[in-house]
């Protein structure tokens, strides 16, 4: 009994409610505690720590893909890992977002010449935000989250404007 089937996909009621939902989605981004490599220390651990405290923005970690909204790909993805990254992504319930953190996840980084390494996680799963850095500061990741929030809100807004 979805709302869009009752009032139509382009009705103002549906779009307004979607905008409200997007407001909520953008402000409650639980990320999956899935650290692959070096970046996990900055983006997942230090970020939750006392100095940076992502919890202020409603961003905190859950251990399970089923509970989480955001996957931070924090590290090099190689052939063995690609399978797992893909599987974890598919385990996450919609709507789900992916942040590609650091040089390795963006483009393979320093290891992209090695044939076992996937040059960029966006070749496996769709990526919403790219954060350059090796590893980025926790603040960079916070900025990335703020960008993601903006992106989520922009989508609803764009539809409403149409």
């Amino acid at each position, binding site marked *: 009994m979805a709302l869009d089937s009752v009032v139509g996909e382009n009705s103002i009621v549906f779009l307004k409610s979607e905008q409200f939902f997007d*407001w909520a989605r953008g402000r409650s981004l639980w990320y999956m505690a899935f650290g692959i490599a070096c970046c996990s220390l900055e983006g997942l651990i230090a970020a939750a720590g006392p100095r940076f405290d992502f919890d202020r*923005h409603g961003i905190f970690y859950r251990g399970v893909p089923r509970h989480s*909204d955001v996957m931070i790909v924090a590290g090099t993805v190689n052939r063995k890992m690609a399978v797992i990254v893909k599987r974890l992504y598919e385990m996450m*319930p919609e709507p789900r977002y992916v942040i590609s953190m650091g040089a390795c996840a963006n483009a393979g980084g320093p290891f992209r010449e090695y044939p076992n390494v996937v040059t960029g996680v966006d070749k496996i799963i769709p990526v919403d935000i790219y954060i350059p850095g090796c590893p980025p500061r926790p603040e960079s990741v916070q900025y990335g989250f703020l960008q993601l929030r903006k992106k989520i809100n922009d989508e609803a807004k764009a539809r409403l404007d149409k």
Partner: protein
Amino acid sequence: MNPWLVALLRALLILLVMLLNGAMAIYMLRKVLGHAHLRLGPTELGPAGLAQLLADIVKLLVKEDRHPNRSDRWLYIIAPFIVFVPSFMTFAFIPFSNKLVAANPDLSLLMMLAFMSIPPLGIFAAGWASRSKFATIGAVRAVGGMITYEIPLLLSALPPVMLAGSMNLQAIVVSQSTSIWYVLPCLPSFIMFLICAQMETSQTPFDMTEADQELVAGFATEYSAMRFGFMYLAEFAENFVMAALAVTLFLGGWTLPGISAAALGPFAVLVFVAKCYILIFLFMMIRGTYSRYRVDHYMEVGWKRLLPISVVWIMVFAAALRVIAMLKGGA
């Protein structure tokens, strides 16, 4: 007025209280743990981060609800309600003030404890239906835990009943207002009750069913969206219920020493809630500080420490009561 309408209104009121309480407890947990860990907790959204809760709940509501492959479909769907509904029903028996209590049967304490023992079954159902190994281990632990702490919990709730001579929670509160708070004569029971409450609500050091670091998320590993939200909420609602029970039995309920019920008036509710939240704060600090017991140590605490101590203490207490009564009667 139509009695059905009144009943419905009451039920809705209880539901509202429960949801508010659960949400408040989650907010409080994040704030308390934040400040205890040199952080702040949610601050950005709304005053002091209060709107954060709204965002979290709305987000969970509109998230995709997933069923894992090969799960036991119907059990998977109803399990969260088995957890949620009994903890919701227990709210009916909590005496918030001398007037404000939704249901006041003679055996309200017994009924409350009976309802409290149902959620672990829901947890077991959830873990079993998920067909995930971590969830199954969590489920098995939940059942093991339940038979471990239920008896000491009941036994440690008995001394106030003996003192008040009633199993009605309101009566226990009233009798405390005329004498002293029962925490003084029944201190060992109070401590045991708190430990059992910690077990019942499965919080560190006794969070066997969830055990984030071992079982990923325990019984809730495969649950997503609002089904997970319900279980999360129920957990915190239980937290409040246990605190309320401890306050009612041992800490004088909605009364304050030296002030009559009439003088307190509507502030009785505030007094009661404040007492509850002080206890919840204590629970949360324990949760944020200590390590977790291993599952066999947990059983050991339940069977080899709490159970014998509570049995012996009950016998000593009953004997002492009898002796005092005889002395009084003799004199």
